[in-house]
């Protein structure tokens, strides 16, 4: 049989006929091949040969499969083995998962611990103890663990002067940077300086109660 193109009303290829016999052609090519086979006895014969060969092969395959299955007589045992293998596989997968997760958790924890250690070391070497204590006291005050230490009058020095703070208001006596400050009483601070304009010594004081 010669190879003929369908477009020119020639016979289809053998592969096309084999695929047609097994119903594996695309629908358009199947329709065209089917139309040709209706009018072509050779091709129809060839398709029948392909179909019978396929049927024979299927029958032989089924026969061999049935023979293999027949060799397995103990289905219960087979089921147990299969279930056991599945359980082992699942357990192994869980083990692998845990190993990975533990390692990940450990590495993350170690990294965090290293960061914390670095922070503590940096704080200890760079931040004065008084500021640490002040921060701790502030946090304790904030959390209500310790009552606020100062609520009354505060007398203090500031960069620009000496100040007394009471009742929400603040009075600051200003002075130049050259002023020398000292406390001048149980609740008083003084600043002494020379007035640049007059050359006169001036002493300012603030008093708390």
């Amino acid at each position, binding site marked *: 049989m010669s190879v003929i193109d369908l477009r020119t009303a020639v016979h289809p290829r053998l592969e096309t006929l084999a695929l047609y016999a097994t119903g594996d052609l695309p629908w358009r090519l199947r329709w065209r091949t089917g139309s040709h086979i209706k009018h072509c006895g050779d091709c129809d014969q060839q398709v029948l040969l392909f179909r019978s060969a396929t049927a024979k092969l299927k029958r032989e395959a089924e026969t061999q499969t049935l023979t293999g299955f027949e060799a397995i007589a103990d289905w219960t045992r087979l089921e147990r083995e299969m279930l056991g293998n599945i359980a082992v596989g699942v357990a192994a997968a869980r083990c692998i998962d845990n190993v990975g997760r533990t390692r990940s958790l450990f590495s993350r924890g170690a990294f965090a611990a290293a960061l914390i250690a670095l922070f503590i070391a940096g704080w200890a070497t760079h931040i*004065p*103890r*008084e*500021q640490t*204590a002040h921060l701790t006291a502030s946090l304790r005050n904030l959390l209500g663990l310790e009552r606020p*230490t*100062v*609520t*009354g*009058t*505060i*007398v*203090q*020095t500031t*960069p*620009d*002067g000496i100040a*007394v*703070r*009471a*009742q*929400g*208001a*603040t*009075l*600051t*006596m*200003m*002075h130049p940077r*050259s002023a*020398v*400050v*000292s*406390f*001048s*009483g*149980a*609740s*008083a*601070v*003084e600043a*002494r300086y*020379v*007035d640049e*304009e*007059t*050359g*006169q*010594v*001036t*002493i*300012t*004081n*603030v*008093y*708390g*109660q």
Partner: protein
Amino acid sequence: MASSCRRLGYAVLLAVWLCSAASADDKWLEVKFANDSPVLLVSFSLGPTTARPLGMSMALDLHASLVLRNTGHKPISGLTLRVEAQDLTPLGKGSVTMPSLNVEPGEVFPVRVDMELLRPFSVAKSEGALVQVSLDCALFNDLSAYGPDTLGSRRALMVYELEARRDRRYLAYLLQTQRLAQLREELNFGLPDFSPQQLGLELLREPRTISRREQPVTVGAVSFPSSPVQTMSGAARVAGNEVRGPQIDVRNTSQKIVRSIDMGWIVRDDRGRDFIAGSVPARMQLGPVQTGTMMEPGTLRFSHPTGQPMVIDALMAFVNDVEFADGKLWIPSRVDIDEATSDPMLRRALGSSPEQQRLAEIYRRKGISGLAEELRRLN
């Protein structure tokens, strides 16, 4: 946007506040002297005074220049003006002291009052000026005084005057004996920026709970040989940059009854530098040979001028001055100061008086001749 709204809000608050102050026909600052006062106000001007919002408060910068006249019959050696803000009364107040004035009767002299008042917007303004300035005490050159003396100013002014006389005599002596090198050293070699080491202070009056960080320390003594009161032993609790509850035992070694003692305190930081932290006058009736204990219940907190806490390593005390029952005062002499310590910096700090500071400024500006003229005029 939020910032603009906040600024607008502050501006509105400021405007409302200023309008209310103006409508009440009030003044920012009022100067009041009694009719029989030895000083009277000649002129008064508010310099670059400004009001601005600061957070939820109003910050009022007051720069007042007063010109006062000595209307009495005696030269005025010094005076103290009391500065009171109605928002802080009676818990807080301020003062301006002018020692070593030497103002003859009829003469005028300037006094500057530079201050800032921070008051919350929520505080209602009462009647009268926000700030009142009045005379607390005026000391004459015969050591008599005038004024209500509500701030203990008379005692301070008397100490300043006695120190001034002591230092003028000492410097005049150096000048007469041609000890010019020593004189220059006493007057800081005419350097403008030479000043004792500075420190930041905070006084807390509320008693604090004892913390585990507190260390008990022994208070050392810097003794002046001729002092009528000698320090014996002392103790304090130190926690970092705080000194709590310092106390010291004293003995009256004179034959006179002591009325009050001004105890000076020196703190040493962790670098071994000594700072004169200040002094606290306290009333203490002590008979001859009698002993007593001076104590300060509050907390003193120290810091460097930069704001960094100053770690306290040691604490020392010295008797700054003593007031007897007859009203007379004792102050350390120059010999006392020289013999009190071998540390030149501490000795310089102990001997630094307002008058010496003023004379050093004259020496810096006018030289030896100007200093000599000033000493001649006052001595």
